[in-house]
């Protein structure tokens, strides 16, 4: 081969590489009209919505590596943006407990007025919450609960047990309506080592047991679409016939639904969990087995910011008789079905 042709070959290769690079760059865009939703924000009514004294809210949460968790942070930011006098001091999400503790310490040193903490692990972050409270900064503990109420001023979060109960009750009701006495009820759980997964499963079992039913084939996934697909593929093989299936999480639900369509299975009633926009759209379309989802809505992050602002301004909650913010607020895990889905679409999050 001559020197010249080698040069030309290299030039052509280089050109191809540049072209491929340009093509790849063009392909990273996710811009689409009306892609972003504003998140689930509370439209505050009454006197409390008027701007008050300035409040700086510190916010610390786990890494947004999951649609629901991403929605929590997004909702908090969007809600804070609605109040002109609120400054949100949000730290980068982390799944490293040590790092989250030092983030909280940094926020304490920065002397924020109120702290909103969604701990990666409630037990491990308890001391950090306590430290803030001791420093005179009220803490709103969001979702994963601290070990002791001494570490928070107010707790707001979902009800994992009731999520399972409501899913179980809905499934039982559907089975009764079909006159099934011994239905095969499957369960695709989330990460089994987390207390929240155990609570959800316990609620599901208890509610079914009340109606004389029990959970049949059960697998646990990792809250990701891929794990949901893998586990469900195996589960479908173990149960040639199913009457109902509860999937704990709508993020992994994308994979669960894919596994169902891979296997051409739709003979049963499926119920989801958490309430993603994707799941709600499927429920509304009513074209597959997904008939309902049980809420565990990230709108609680918006509410936490509202509460933090009111705490910072020494206000109560409108329509309550109390002068103070209550110490605990548990959100309700409503069952979203085709009949009421329109009512809940605004809290659906991008999975």
């Amino acid at each position, binding site marked *: 081969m001559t020197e010249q042709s080698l040069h030309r070959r290299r030039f052509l290769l280089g050109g191809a590489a540049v072209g491929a690079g340009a093509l790849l760059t063009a392909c990273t*865009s996710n811009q689409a009209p009306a892609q972003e939703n504003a998140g689930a924000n509370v439209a505050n009514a009454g006197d409390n919505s008027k701007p008050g004294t300035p409040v700086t809210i510190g916010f610390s949460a786990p890494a947004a*590596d999951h649609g629901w968790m991403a929605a929590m942070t997004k909702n908090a930011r969007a809600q804070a943006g609605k109040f002109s006098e609120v400054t949100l001091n949000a730290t980068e999400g982390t799944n490293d407990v040590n790092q989250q503790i030092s983030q909280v310490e940094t926020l304490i040193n920065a002397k924020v007025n109120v702290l909103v903490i969604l701990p990666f692990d409630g037990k491990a972050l308890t001391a950090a919450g306590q430290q803030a409270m001791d420093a005179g900064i009220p803490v709103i503990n969001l979702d994963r609960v601290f070990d002791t109420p001494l570490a928070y001023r107010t707790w707001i979060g979902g009800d994992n047990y009731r999520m399972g109960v409501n899913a179980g009750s809905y499934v039982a009701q559907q089975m009764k309506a079909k006159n099934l006495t011994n239905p095969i009820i499957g369960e695709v759980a989330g990460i089994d080592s987390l207390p929240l997964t155990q609570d959800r499963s316990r609620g599901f079992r208890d509610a079914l047991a009340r109606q004389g039913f029990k959970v049949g084939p059960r697998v646990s996934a990792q809250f*990701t*679409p*891929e794990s949901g697909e893998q586990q469900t593929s*195996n589960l479908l093989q*173990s149960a040639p016939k199913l009457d109902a299936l509860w999937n704990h999480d709508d993020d992994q639900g994308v994979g669960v639904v894919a596994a169902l369509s891979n296997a051409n299975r739709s003979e049963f009633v499926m119920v989801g969990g958490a309430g993603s926009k994707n799941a709600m759209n499927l429920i509304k379309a009513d074209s597959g087995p997904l008939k309902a989802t049980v809420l565990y809505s990230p709108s609680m992050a918006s509410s936490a910011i509202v509460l933090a602002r009111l705490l910072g301004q020494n206000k109560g909650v409108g329509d309550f008789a109390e002068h103070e913010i209550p110490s605990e607020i548990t959100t309700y895990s409503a069952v979203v079905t085709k009949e009421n889905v329109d009512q809940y679409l605004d809290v659906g999050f991008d999975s």
Partner: protein
Amino acid sequence: MTDQAESVRVTDPGKPLSPQRKRFAWRADPRLLGLTGVLVVLCLVGQLTRPDQFFTDGNISTILRLAAAIGVVSVGMTFVIISGGIDLSVGSIVALSSVWLTTLATQSYGPGVMVLCGVLVGLGCGLVNGILVSYGKIVPFIATLAMYVAARGLAERISGRRTQVVADAGFLDFFRGSLLGIPVLIWMFALVFAVGWVVLNRTTFGRRTYAVGGNAEASRLAGINVKRHTALVYGVAGLCCGIAALMVVARTTAGASTNGMLYELDAIAAVVIGGTLLTGGRGSLIGTLIGVLIFTVLSNIFTLNNLDTDIQNIAKGVIIVLAALLQFRSRKTPHP
């Protein structure tokens, strides 16, 4: 132990197998027989515990489709490990490729661009790994560790941590469909495996991979461009990740930054129990294939019998240890 065999390959890369090489290949067989035995025993356990379900078309197809993506990744990993390296970034590359090929912009150009993007991104990441390792002289563990972190981060940035569902029906219909009654994913796996086997066992590229892993300095003296070859081997691994990303997207109908979680560990485990030495220079793709199937069948049996995943992980650990012990015995080297 295998130095003699290696030197034959190094000095004589183009010639047919020497007697030593043949004997070496024959010596490796009992190990593969042992592994096949483990797989057969597992299948028997599956058949005994769930006679109604295990050996059905649906279940076998499910097992093979579940094995497909991690199997393709493991083919690339086998090349890297035989060449004396390690690739910790495969899972992250799968995530990045899957996210890249499912962005709205990519989807709007149609399935061809999606496929091209997935494959090119995988190949590109692999080549970057390879260049860092060979020309940058960074040890593979560190170079691919950097890619492991960076690629997943980029995947999260591009996707905004959302699950990007594929709307393109053409893409899904093709990759989720069947050809001659066999799912396309299984065809893809078979094709990647067959091409990988031919390249590794029947081409100069394959013999050089063994040679570089066996003794890089001797390979260099024998006239092999070790740096370029190493870069290309990581490129092969990246390419496999890109193909696996297509398969994962087809199965889950979505690209997500959480795709490919822990693939690096699953692939390394499959390669190692398949008899490939972590020190390089020796190994086989057949072993890797059996390794992947052993793990997939194990997981299938556990689900069929409604057992906890915790115990499954313990069983996986035991199998890895047993395979490693078997490796020591077959090498007939004294245990340190």
